[in-house]
């Protein structure tokens, strides 16, 4: 099972990212946990500069933009 973290201080783009990730999980019946990280100190531990960030199993995958559902799917099935 994969552990997904979405890093973001609560802006619109971060919420959009969460929504896309949850939709992909539901549609493709992928088993994963989704955690929203909003604490700035916790976010900075990943050494990123722009939010939203998609972290899968502690690996930073997409940063600074909202991913498309296809991208998320590809990353999760990899």
């Amino acid at each position, binding site marked *: 099972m994969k552990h997904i973290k979405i890093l973001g201080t*609560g802006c*619109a*783009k971060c919420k959009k990212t969460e929504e896309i990730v949850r939709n992909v999980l539901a549609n493709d019946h992928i088993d994963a946990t989704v955690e929203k990280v909003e604490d*700035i100190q916790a976010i900075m531990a990943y050494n*990123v500069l722009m939010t939203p960030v998609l972290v899968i199993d502690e690996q930073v995958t997409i940063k600074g933009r909202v991913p498309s559902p296809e991208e998320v799917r590809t990353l999760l099935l990899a």
Partner: protein
Amino acid sequence: MFDWLDHLIAWLVYDTIGLDATTHWGQALHFFFYDTVKILLLLFLVTFIMGIVNAYFPIDRIRNFLSRNKLYGGEYLLASTFGAITPFCSCSSVPLFIGFVKGGIPMGVTLAFLITSPLVNEVAIAMFIGMFGVKTTVIYAVTGILLGTIGGAVMGRMRLERYLTPWVQGVVQQAKMEGAYEEEKLTFVQRLPGVAREAWGIVRSVILYVLIGIGIGALMHGFVPTGFFEEHISADNPLAVPLAVILGVPMYANAAGVLPVIQVLVQKGVPLGTAIAFMMAVVGLSLPEATLLKKVMTMKLIAIFFGTVSFFIILSGYLFNVIL
């Protein structure tokens, strides 16, 4: 550049819908359609071009470059320029700030980046070209970049690190140079679909603001008599610029929403410099921004930051009024 569009919209509004070109509603509707289509076209084009530039200057690379190179003062100009080409999102300003100081980039250089980023960006540039033409846009962009450079350099000399919140001071003390940055190896053609999708994403995210801004602008265009503002805010009134800036600082709107209104203010007699100073204050500084920065800065530092930037915006306003 957009004559064809002007004719097309005139045909649509006056001939097809049948509104009279001399009525308030006719003028307002023509303005609304013409500006909306023109701005959306420009927005997509400019964000697309900036997206290509950006693909070659990703933010991590910029950070690492600034972290490793000391350029005898040139780093302020460089940081400010990078701030202009990087797409701006107010929610990223805190992670950016910490990421920069964590990489050992001096506070002043970081602030230079942070000042310019909301002032000059792809949305502002596209809107500016559409509303005021290329020449004014270039002057605006150059002024914005210089404002960030000088503002950052001035604040760099004030030794402001002691006014950061304690945990950020800890970050500064442990700052270290960033290593080489691993980037995705993609050819120019491989990058294009992603860039186009990003550009469309940016356009889509501001469409609503553009429509609201142009809507307000269109109503003012149709209904507020020309010269209305001249009586109240003229270039001769030396206090007009500082007043416009003080009024604009607490307000928050992005460039997409505020520029259509600015354009109409200028048409109705507000001097361009005063209007631009107002716009810079609205997009560059705001109460929400101050709230975000409270996570990393003490109130004293926020006050110094806002004060310094406001001061330079006021100066630019006077400068614009003289040269434009």
